[in-house]
């Protein structure tokens, strides 16, 4: 699973390393597919991704083409359901009962549960072998702080993967981050990669600036 909603919170440098190492047949879990040419779209375009579990890929025409051509399997979930499935795994639970989409085409009969006189949809927990995350700041123990809207799926994924690898441009001494301002406690973090610099992918994207 890979953090980020659009660019904020996307671990572009860790993705580049995955691109370099070239692992194939990956199943990726990410809110979106970034945009053509950046982030996980590079992994898709290089043919490393077999399956994408996501909520919306409308900003990435390349990913839609790959999907329509049958070269990329895509599994869509309502955004809050994807978040909650990951959070459920992160909480050490196995599934939850919801009414979201209960009477729409996204619900299959085998997902329905009658329980104590009510009908629910059962959404199962979604965990991963590895989470790649981006944090604005960290300390050497692996305590994390996110900036702006870059929090999104990152703290949920930190709890839901067997191996949690976090990139950050700023790594501080333990104690530098006030204990009640830490977004992800170090117990959930396995590896920290300190970035010497942020590439252009982390910058403001000109085509999203209105003039």
């Amino acid at each position, binding site marked *: 699973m890979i953090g980020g909603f659009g660019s904020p919170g996307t671990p572009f440098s860790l993705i580049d390393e995955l691109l370099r190492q070239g692992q194939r047949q990956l199943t990726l879990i990410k809110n979106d597919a970034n945009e053509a040419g950046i982030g996980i779209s590079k992994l898709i375009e290089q043919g490393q991704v077999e399956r994408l579990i996501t909520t919306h890929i409308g900003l990435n025409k390349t990913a839609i083409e790959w999907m329509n051509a049958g070269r990329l399997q895509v599994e869509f979930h*309502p*955004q*809050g359901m994807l*978040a909650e499935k*990951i959070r459920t795994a992160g909480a050490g639970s196995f599934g939850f009962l919801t009414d979201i989409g209960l009477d729409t085409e996204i619900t299959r009969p085998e997902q329905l549960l009658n329980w104590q006189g009510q009908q629910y949809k059962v959404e199962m927990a979604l965990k991963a072998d590895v989470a790649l995350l981006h944090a604005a700041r960290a300390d050497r123990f692996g305590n994390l702080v996110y900036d*702006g809207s870059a929090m999104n799926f990152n703290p949920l994924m930190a709890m839901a993967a067997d191996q949690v690898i976090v990139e950050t441009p700023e790594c501080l001494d333990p104690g530098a981050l006030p204990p009640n301002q830490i977004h992800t406690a170090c117990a959930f973090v396995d590896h920290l990669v300190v970035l010497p610099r942020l590439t252009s992918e982390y910058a*403001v994207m000109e085509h999203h600036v209105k003039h």
Partner: protein
Amino acid sequence: MSNIETLLKRATREVLPGSILNLGIGLPTQLLDYLPDNLDVLIHSENGVLGAWKQAPREQMNPALIDAAGAYISTVPGSSFFDSSVSFAMIRRSKIDLTMIGAFEVDQQGSLANWKIPGKFSPGIGGAMELAQKTPRIVVLMTHCDKQGRSKILRHCRLPVTAHHCVSRIITDLAVLDVTTNGLSVQELAEGVTPDYLRSVTDADLIFPEEVA
């Protein structure tokens, strides 16, 4: 003023002081530019922002702070950031007072279709389903007809539904319609639009209260 501008101007009147609102991608997002500054509202963005506001000035743009549509937003005093599970907890607990949303189709029962055109458009559901199902008040902003001139207001949605019976009001370039238990009630007509004309371009049953007809 174009018809779309008129529509957006009209839509600003839906925004009540002290409320929390969510603006879907498309026309609703454009509404932001029509809202007066210092308006006492908090705009929720699915990606984890309460208190989103217009595009930040160039020198204050934070590449790590966007809204769900990708714009480099500013925030109002009293805004907060949170993770996606909390963001959707807020939605599912009906803490968003008003969602303005775009649509492919709305029917006279207030059902909404806005996420999928089988075989043509299926980029995913995003946050639409939970917003549609759980916001107490949904106002649809859309053109009355599609590019081929066909009514987007129907007796029954033909496309896969996002949520059933969820829409309270529809604001189009031609009219303002309320979904009532009796059917679609025309509240306002755009300048130059007659009841007969509206009937002729709408594939649904319309009720015209006395003061409109």
